[in-house]
């Protein structure tokens, strides 16, 4: 049976601030912050984690703000740090850098070649060099499940004895491709961000970065463990999943973790706020267990951070759980009769010990569920 692995260092930066503690006041309030409007074709809303700076600079600034505290907290000696593996989960990868360079040149009236020096693994290579990591590097890019899959792979590496420590990183930096792309798909919210609500209209994007150092032993770390998880492809539709497949991946994740659904004390839903995701996920949650443990969507607090949401929302959950609560889902006011489930509408007390299921679903039917325990 696969073994749990331990979170020995964390770093997080979202629009709520840097560090786990910075997330708590807003999470406790249950109120979503106001998103800024960005300059895109239709002036969409966006949650910035860094106030200014071009896309290229902000990507690595976000990463540094997440990775530095995580490595500091893990307190690895020099040899251990050198041998630490690196797993990055991201959907934007370094596109913001290329976008910044390209659009700057276009704005000057030039005819630049888009994306010079491409490489999905470039960002990880740069991070490894910057932080002195000489272990294996992996970049996983599976849309919105990217960093959740990164966590799963890191756990497998540790269980197999292929690494003693793994730095897992999730990042999404503002880029116009993503905002314009979701706009073209008509998936962006036309008002408040309200997952699972009867009148939900879509999602608001956000940026951020998160990092954890996973290890086989807890050491002095807070008692947070990645207990298990599962990832599976639902090939029924490129942009939405079928409830059967969502249910299957949740059940597989629980089986992998050796946790019964009745043992769950909470669920962190993917909860994007789109009509289709929330319908399918809500249907699957309703069939998972009755009564359903309290569940919530964290996306209204920081925006949908796409490939980074696995890592970012995991640490937001850890931050709130450490203070004894599961945050409410902002924006929810009316039950959708077609879904029939209601997310937490106020902070729910969470026991100090227990297991929480976390869902992350990406385009291409890439569905991942994680089981986190304290």
């Amino acid at each position, binding site marked *: 049976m696969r073994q749990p692995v331990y979170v020995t260092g964390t770093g997080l930066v979202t629009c709520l601030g840097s560090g786990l503690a910075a997330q708590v006041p807003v999470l406790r309030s249950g109120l979503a912050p106001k998103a800024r409007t960005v300059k895109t074709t239709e002036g969409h809303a966006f949650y910035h984690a860094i106030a200014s700076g071009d896309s290229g600079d902000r990507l690595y600034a976000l990463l540094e703000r997440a990775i530095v505290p995580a490595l500091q907290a893990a307190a690895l000696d020099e040899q251990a740090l050198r041998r630490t593996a690196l797993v990055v989960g991201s959907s934007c990868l370094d596109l913001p850098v290329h976008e910044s360079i390209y659009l700057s040149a276009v704005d000057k009236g030039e005819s630049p070649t888009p994306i010079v020096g*491409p490489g999905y693994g470039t960002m990880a290579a740069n991070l490894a060099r910057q932080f002195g990591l*000489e272990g294996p590097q*992996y970049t996983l890019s599976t*849309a919105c499940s990217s960093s959740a899959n990164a966590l799963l*792979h890191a756990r497998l590496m540790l269980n197999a004895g292929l690494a003693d420590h793994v730095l897992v990183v999730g990042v999404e930096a503002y880029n116009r*491709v993503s905002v314009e792309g979701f706009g073209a798909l008509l998936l962006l919210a036309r008002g408040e961000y309200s997952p699972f609500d009867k009148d939900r209209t879509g999602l608001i994007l956000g940026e951020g970065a998160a990092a954890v150092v996973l290890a086989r032993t807890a050491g002095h770390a807070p008692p947070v463990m990645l207990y298990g998880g599962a990832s599976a*492809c639902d*090939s029924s539709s490129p942009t939405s999943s079928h409830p059967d497949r969502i249910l299957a991946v949740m059940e597989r994740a629980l089986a992998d973790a050796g946790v019964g659904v009745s043992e769950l004390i909470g669920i962190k839903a993917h909860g994007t706020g789109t009509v289709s995701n929330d319908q399918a996920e809500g249907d699957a949650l309703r069939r998972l267990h009755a009564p359903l443990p309290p569940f919530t969507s964290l996306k209204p607090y920081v925006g949908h951070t796409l490939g980074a949401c696995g890592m970012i929302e995991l640490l937001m959950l850890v931050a709130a759980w450490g203070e004894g609560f599961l945050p409410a889902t902002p924006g929810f006011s009316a039950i959708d009769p077609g879904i029939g489930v209601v997310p937490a509408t106020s902070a729910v007390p969470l026991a100090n010990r227990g297991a929480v299921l976390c869902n992350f679903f990406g385009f291409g039917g890439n569905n991942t569920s994680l089981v986190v325990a304290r």
Partner: protein
Amino acid sequence: MIFPLPIVAASGFVQLAGDTAASLRDELRSVTPNAPRRINRLAELGLIGAHRCVAGRDLTDDTAVVVATTTGCLNDSVQLLRAIGDRRPPMPMDFINVSSNMTGFHLAAGLRLHSSNQVVASADFAWEAAIEVAMLGSRRFLVGAIEECTWPLAQQRERLGLSQDAPILESSQWLWVDRDATSPIARIDSVKRFQNDAELAGDLSSASWPRDSEVSIHNADAAIVRALTGLTVPTASTPSPHSGIDAAAACIAAVTRRARSFVCISRGRTGQWCVTAITAA
């Protein structure tokens, strides 16, 4: 135990990029009559290679799909940036297709697979990284390495830092691995990483490969590899912007020609090494 990994089948598809993008539809329809439409070139390449590998056989739905790529969905990324630069809204399908895992999605749809579906990249050893991701997560998997070209070629050569007369290849290389295979054609005996020359030499001095193993080297000096390993190695090592494919192509070629013993040695940009050993069953 992780190794050995029994190989059921292997296949590769490679074509030289011409001055214009050659259509892949006919090739795709020849391997899968129900080829999906409105997919991108990376997915077309991926499906061609994977279906050639599977060759119409049934896979169990717990077969994972892992795709290695270095430059990913380059065509879609370029098109999306051009649209934004031109102040045009992006085409919805271009945005959906820019998710590199769409290749695995279409493959899973066609082969009715419902297991893990991953896209793996690494600046060095992308192919080997994909094998490592696959082997830890699943008992059986399709692992492929795919790289596409973009046009115009002059821009693609500039993009990759190549001379303007350098050939550019598009490639889709696949292995089908199944730990429960009863009649594998070969097996991956090991995928090992080494931090430096000394670690490589130390391990290889005790390696059990036959001295006449076929050897393929990537981004490494042949003389150095001969000195470190004592193996007879090819004299040429062609540096490639797609080093991930080169290793994959070499492995697939070795499997398909039933090489008795094959060693693929890749060197990374920071002096690390990765060695894959494959033997015929």
